[in-house]
């Protein structure tokens, strides 16, 4: 397991830097508009915003799954936009990604799914659980234990409940030995109890391993309770960037209201 320092979030090295990043989709969708922010090692940053505000698009820029139209995204000291092929893959290896719909391969066992997290550092295609080296399988089982799913290791992934699948997906990301963990609405499809469980897991892992976390959410309460810092997005623009400690519900709520609406609300309130 990679040994990471435990930097103080305020002074840690910058791991993710967005500088004036815009993303356009033809013909006229502006998904991100001049977004700039830094994330430091070990921070847990929550992206908050309506659906359609650009959260997923932003996260995909970090992993190089999509490229910005303008501006630069640098991750772990490298410019993501300029990376292609093997170099882009090498970066992705260092960045774990957890998705809203878990995205496990349903027909495979849970353990094999978790093993696929190691593909980035293995050479060649893998068919079947036994094609992964024992060391990888052992590590994967270890991560499954970490997320409390060792007992389900040999079940088919699609036999798990939603919360279990998402924890397995976290284990898969951890097998990558990532330095950054991205999570795109990881609990939006879960019941409140499983949601809290998954968020707690992500939080704990971040603290244990000094992992930088960038996680999008659309529920304010979850954002306030699990993030160190909240970045609010509205129509692709950053409208809030503040530590969650001391942030009032009301000021965070403004992320959700239209400027026009806000004046109405202020007048009414």
């Amino acid at each position, binding site marked *: 397991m990679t040994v990471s320092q435990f930097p103080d979030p305020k002074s840690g090295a910058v791991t993710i830097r967005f500088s004036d990043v815009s993303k356009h*989709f*033809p013909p006229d*969708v502006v998904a991100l508009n001049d977004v700039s922010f830094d994330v430091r090692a070990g921070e847990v940053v929550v992206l908050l915003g309506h*659906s359609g505000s650009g959260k*997923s*698009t932003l996260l*995909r820029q970090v*992993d190089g*799954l*999509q490229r910005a139209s303008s501006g630069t995204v640098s991750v772990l000291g490298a410019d993501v936009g300029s990376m292609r092929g093997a170099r882009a*893959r090498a*970066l*992705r*290896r*260092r*960045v*774990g*990604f957890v*998705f*809203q*719909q878990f*995205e*496990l*391969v*349903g*027909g*495979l*066992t849970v353990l094999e799914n978790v093993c*696929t*997290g*190691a*593909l*980035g*550092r*293995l050479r*060649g*295609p*893998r*068919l079947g*659980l036994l094609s992964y080296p*024992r060391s990888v*399988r*052992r590590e994967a*089982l270890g991560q499954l*234990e970490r997320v409390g799913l*060792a*007992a*389900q*290791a*040999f*079940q*088919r992934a*699609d*036999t*798990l*409940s939603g919360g279990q699948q998402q924890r397995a*997906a976290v284990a*898969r*990301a951890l097998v*990558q030995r990532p330095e950054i963990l991205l999570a795109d609405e990881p609990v939006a499809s879960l019941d409140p109890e499983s949601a809290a469980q998954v968020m707690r897991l992500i939080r704990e892992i971040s603290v244990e391993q000094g992992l930088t976390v960038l996680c999008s959410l659309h529920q304010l309460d979850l954002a306030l309770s699990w993030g160190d810092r909240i970045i609010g997005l509205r129509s692709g623009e950053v409208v809030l960037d503040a530590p969650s400690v001391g942030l009032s519900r009301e000021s965070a709520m403004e992320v959700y209201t239209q400027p026009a609406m806000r004046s109405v609300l202020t007048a009414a309130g």
Partner: protein
Amino acid sequence: MMPITRAPAGEGAPAQPRTLAAPRPTSALAFLAIAALLGLGCWAVLDLRINIATLIDSGRNAAEFAGRMFPLDFPGTGELLRLTGQTLAIVVCATLLSVLLSVPIAVLAASNTTPNRTSRYTSRGLIVVARAVPDVVLAIIFFRVFGLGALTGVLAMGLHSVGMVGKLYADAIEQIDEGPRQAVRAGGASRLQELTSGVLPQVLPAFVAHALHRFDINLRISVVLGFVGVNGLGHEIATAFRQLDYQRGMALALVVLVLCIVIELLSGAIRRALLRSTDRGRRSVSSVPSQRGARSEQRLSPRWTFQRIRRAGYLVLTGLVVLASIWGAELSVGQFFGALGDLGSTLGLFWPPETGGMLPTLLADLWVTVKIALAGTLIGAVLALPIGALAARNVAPRASVAKVFRTIVVTVRGLPELVLAIVFVVITGLGPVAGACALGVGAIGLLGKLVADSLEEVDPGKEQAVRATGASAWQVFCSATVPQAAPAFVGHLLYQLDVNIRSATLLGIVGAGGIGFQLLNASRVLEFGVVTTVMLLVFGTVLVVELLALWLRSVLR
């Protein structure tokens, strides 16, 4: 269930908003086209004088023929086993070849895995060409190069099958859930790893099912190809009929019939086991006690459960069958490469296309083939729609009814068209009526299955919604089940028509009317240019039907 909005992996256009659009003029045109096809079908039935009276009238022929057929003359057991083994070996090798070729072609052809447009269109083109060149023509070409033997059949069926297997594989790849694949990519996997870990596990059951399905089809085709020089049972049948030895010929046809049904049942059982094992996996969710895992903590490979043993067993068995087939077919690499040099000069014989001064005859026969196909499809639809509906579990009044009709469908699918055609040639005499009847009855197998499957695939939620209003079973069927499956029906009918034009050509070879007879004749008298002309004519016709189907499907979607 609709997937929750998920941003596409690439940077493609976002999903179009759904609107309550007014019916477009194109869909009116589509309905007109369908009506016109139906009209043509009716006209073909009338024009060919296919009716009960004719069929009864020809009963006398049948009686007379039966006299010459009995007693059936079976070859000795050893000979029978040798022939059967030969046929099976050729079919296994051909199917294997088609799978080996289809996997890479499908990856290149599927819109979500293709590296670029050029390779996509090239491989789609290859698939279309493979499907369009009839297996008989391929067999005629390879027979010329490699002579009587396994190689001719393996290559002819193997290459032609890519047209179906490659297309189905590409479709299966296009239907995968992109999410898991994107997750694998997000972990830093290479393109190849993405395919093997993110795509293959999703499509594997479909790949195996399609391969088995094609295996069944190839078995039947191999018998017809016996008439143009592919070893095995078909060749013996062809020889027997050529020598007017009906006792031997019909005995062998009976053997083929039994073999086809046995294989059909077998592969059906394997396919179902395949699907059931995935089901069972799902159901075991709650039944697996979590404490059991405490002991398996240290295990790094799965236990040898019954399911795992069975799966490994299937795998080993498949491997053995394949090895035995390659060995049994006596495929010689030396012969292949030795004769490959002749391929060029042989292909030269087929070019340029010639008409042998009988273009009008060829065109007239082509028209007969089209009529046979149209009539066969219409008869098939009339027979297959009710049978298919009753075979669907969610439509049949009782599970037992569905089972009975499924069995009928499966049994008919087991009947080789060749045997059907021979039977109808016996009943109605040589000519197009035999062809149309054979195709019509045969359609119960394919069309009936497709109809039943697409009825079973409808969203049960919508059925439940209608049932919840207090509707009767019949009302549920009409207002929830059929509307959902109707576009698929049109697609299936056109597919059947497409298949039938090819089959009608094939059946002509055994005397069931149409252009196929000209094909066989031309190859007998070594007028290969005419073979090419016939092929191009059939090719053109099939292309027209396919374009029509493509357009209709896109409009009716």
